[in-house]
């Protein structure tokens, strides 16, 4: 439906081709979170890998820092419509986390948990093969607390609500269990290129 009098300000072609449907480019880095920034420091942070309720391995900050580093640079897309280009992150890939724990994925489904008790589900296939890292730096510096520092998940090919801030653990689940937003009307998978914002999209 054409809106009377609206012409808009379409972005240049080289920007438009990098924007998933319904997104616009921002230079800012907006902050979205359910509540206050949790007070997590490198001293109190840890990451736990679980199979259901059973812990498989836990890393403190200094133990985690010894794992191989993976860098990623590219575009991120938030379900609230903004996209940000060429963001640079570094951290530990989910592949290297599993390998350090000496385990292979026990199920095809995972749920990530944050220190703010936020949760989100990601299929294991979307984490492996270098597709996801637990990031500990942004643009060459520690991640600011408002953006999830000391560590956040980065699954950049999905909407950014799938990349929880202040991440504290990864849990394999028997079936695909929705997390916080997925139980409140947001899409179970969240592919920005297919505009999977809400249930049924």
């Amino acid at each position, binding site marked *: 439906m054409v809106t009377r009098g609206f012409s808009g300000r*379409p972005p240049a072609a080289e920007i438009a081709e990098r924007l998933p449907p319904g997104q616009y480019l921002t230079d800012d880095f*907006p902050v*979205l979170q*359910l509540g*206050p920034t949790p007070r997590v420091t490198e001293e109190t942070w840890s990451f736990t890998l679980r199979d259901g309720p059973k812990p498989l391995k836990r890393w403190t900050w200094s133990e985690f820092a010894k794992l191989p580093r993976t860098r990623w640079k590219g575009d991120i897309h938030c379900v609230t419509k903004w996209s940000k280009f060429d963001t640079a992150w570094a951290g530990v890939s989910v592949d290297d986390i599993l390998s350090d724990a000496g385990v292979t994925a026990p199920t095809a489904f995972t749920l990530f948990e944050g220190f703010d008790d936020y949760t989100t589900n990601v299929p294991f296939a979307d984490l492996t093969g270098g597709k996801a890292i637990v990031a500990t730096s942004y643009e060459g510096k520690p991640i600011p607390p408002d953006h999830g520092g000391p560590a956040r998940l980065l699954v950049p090919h999905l909407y950014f609500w799938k990349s929880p801030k202040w991440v504290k653990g990864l849990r394999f689940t028997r079936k695909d269990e929705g997390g916080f937003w997925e139980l409140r009307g947001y899409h179970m998978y969240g592919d920005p290129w297919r505009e999977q914002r809400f249930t049924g999209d």
Partner: protein
Amino acid sequence: MAAEKMPWRTARIGAIAPVTPRVKSFRFEGLEGRHRAGQHVEVRLTAPDGYSAQRSYSIASAPGDAAGLELMIEGLEEGEVSSYFAGIAEVGDEVELRGPIGGSFVWSPEDEGPVLLIGGGSGVVPLLSMLRARFSARSETPMLLIYSVRNAAEAIAREELQIRARDEPGFDLTLLTTREGATAGRRVDRVMIETALDHVGKPRHVFVCGSNGFVGSVSDLLVDASVKPSIIRTERFGG
């Protein structure tokens, strides 16, 4: 079973009214369904060449308001959607909406209280929906709004808020003007938070909405004042 897609609906602008020098109110007709106070809708505008732009806006009206769903939109020069609403949209025009959306920053009268609301600038809009929902339900849940604005002229629904504070039992308003009057230079601070907590009682829900800096600083003050982080819900514009 595939869930049903949330549809885009054509909504007619039924009324437009100025709210502040920069903010206008838009009432939409042709929408069904009830929202929960605090939720938002998506707006989609489409140009003749097929280019379209989408943005999210918080709902200002109470759930089920017979006058139609109300959005309050600030005219930002650089915003392609907000500048359409500021300068082009007229009564009778149609846009596409979908929603309501959001299941975290929400309050309904059955959620009870006490409730502490803290808004900065146009961040008051979803909080206004909560106040209006409280009144529609004739709820007497203790509710206190701290509303921070640069000056009184920029306060959204100032008169309505003052009348509600005068007439509605259990609702109190603290209007803080940070650039004029006796409170010029003051920000929402520790003393103001502690005074509000003493007054409204131990809150069951706290909602904070405004700019990124405002929400960050207020939620830190709340945590410092021993409010449980899990009852604090935040929303920041620009996000």
